[in-house]
């Protein structure tokens, strides 16, 4: 019995070996982007422009927002943490939807990868880690801007970065899962126009939805991941943490796990015929 366990690595060791091996896919992506770094870097500026345009431009007129506990914050301090969450989402989703779709259907990159010791798990984990790195860049850049502009109101704000990584991981897994269902480039309209954009607009990014939207719509929004990501990150930035944020944390972890499972299953179905 003992000899057997020694001869074969345990499940945990195998899992770790797979995760470790998936770094090769990350290395591959880094090499490809070495000459196209502007594509990744330019994404840093998107949330910054939104913060300047909406947060400060409109903020000059709106001035203050009352939070759920009655505390009043400047509009820019209200919008900025939400933009950390949307930056994490966008970084993860762009990578796992557009780029993975291209590699899956046109470049046939993964068929090449599969002819090496790497398997489906390594591909899924590798793409997710890479998307996570890209999203982390955006979230950290936004966090630094917030620090400089004095928009982080609580010491808990330091936890915004790991929270943003969780949001990014959740959306990277969701993107991977969703991409395998797309057939042509025209299908991008569906995830972007029907899911990502409405979430961006209605998840409490720019206004407190509980105060403005009808109850049934609030309930629907509360079922979606970006709402919880924004709620969590805004809670950390303002220091107002309650049961809602804990639920959000749990939601995102479960959402991540379910999506990753679907993503692996779908990729296997698509790549191994």
């Amino acid at each position: 019995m003992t000899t057997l366990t020694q001869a074969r690595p345990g499940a945990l060791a195998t899992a770790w070996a797979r995760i470790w091996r998936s770094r090769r896919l990350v290395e591959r992506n880094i090499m490809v982007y070495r000459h196209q770094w502007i594509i990744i870097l330019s994404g840093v500026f998107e949330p910054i422009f939104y913060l300047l345009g909406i947060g400060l431009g409109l903020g000059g007129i709106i001035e203050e927002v009352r939070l759920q506990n009655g505390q009043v914050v400047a509009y820019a301090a209200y919008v900025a943490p939400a933009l950390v969450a949307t930056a994490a989402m966008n970084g993860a989703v762009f990578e796992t939807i557009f780029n993975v779709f291209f590699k899956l259907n046109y470049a046939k990159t993964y068929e090449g990868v599969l002819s090496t010791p790497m398997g489906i798990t390594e591909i899924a984990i590798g793409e997710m880690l890479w998307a996570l790195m890209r999203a982390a860049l955006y979230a950290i850049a936004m966090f630094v801007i917030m620090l400089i502009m004095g928009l982080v109101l609580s010491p808990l704000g330091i936890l915004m970065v790991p929270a943003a990584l969780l949001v990014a991981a959740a959306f990277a897994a969701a993107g991977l899962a969703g991409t395998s269902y797309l057939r042509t480039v025209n299908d991008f309209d569906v995830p972007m126009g029907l899911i990502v954009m409405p979430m961006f607009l209605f998840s409490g990014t720019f206004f407190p939805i509980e105060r403005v939207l009808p109850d049934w719509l609030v309930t629907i929004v509360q079922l979606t991941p970006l709402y919880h990501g924004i709620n969590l990150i805004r809670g950390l930035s303002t220091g107002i943490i309650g049961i809602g944020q804990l639920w959000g944390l749990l939601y995102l972890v479960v959402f991540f796990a379910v999506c990753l499972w679907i993503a692996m299953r779908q990729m296997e179905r698509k790549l191994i015929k």
Partner: protein
Amino acid sequence: MTVLAASGRVWQRNWLVYKRLWHRSLAFGFLQPVLFLTAMGIGIGALLTPSSLEAFGGVPYIDWLGPGLLAAMAMQTATFESTYPIMNRIMWGRNYEAMLSTPVGIRSIVLGELGWTAFRIGSLAAVFLVVLALFGIVRTPLAVLAVPFATLVGVAFAACLIAFTATQKNDVGFSAIFRFVINPLFLFSGTFFPLTNLPEPLRAVAWATPLFHGVELIRGSVLDQLDPVTAPLHLAYLLIMFGVGAWFAERTLTRRMAG
């Protein structure tokens, strides 16, 4: 075949491709303004106090925002359609190469593509105007002018972007254009907040940029605030931008297809 007749064939080619997708395109063209107006117009509008509405000329925020978004949509759609799809016809799908082996020339290709953009933006602007009317934003029959104004914004951007795309060897530059040109124009052209809220030097820059002029024209027509002095100036800016862009587009595309 005359230049115009040939450009009609280029237009027709795009139509044949689009024919299978038009219902989806117009459905999204309807949905997007509904979502934006509900979220930004009603949501952000709820945060504004009656006194702060003076910044928007006394009209409700959603009324002020709606026409601005129409101008922005015209810019964004025209820009997108003039980058990746044009690149596809230049080098990935090589459709232009095939066209040039027929009596179709470069000038007809540029004219045909711009005519196609005009049709696309015009139809989307008409749908957008219906949405504005449904939200009760339209004040005057003069608002129908918003459709040709939006179309002009679209072709002006399309002409400049086709000229740019023809000089590019890969699609890396497009990300830079979207992030550093289109996105700032979207946010800082008086779409979401009046330019009077910007610091003085930035305001001067904003006045020199194209989307601002489109926003002014379209907002003026929808809210019945067209100014007989400034409106011709806005119009002239966009017409010149279109003319210069189209001239460059023909030049850069000629050079590209010869090389």
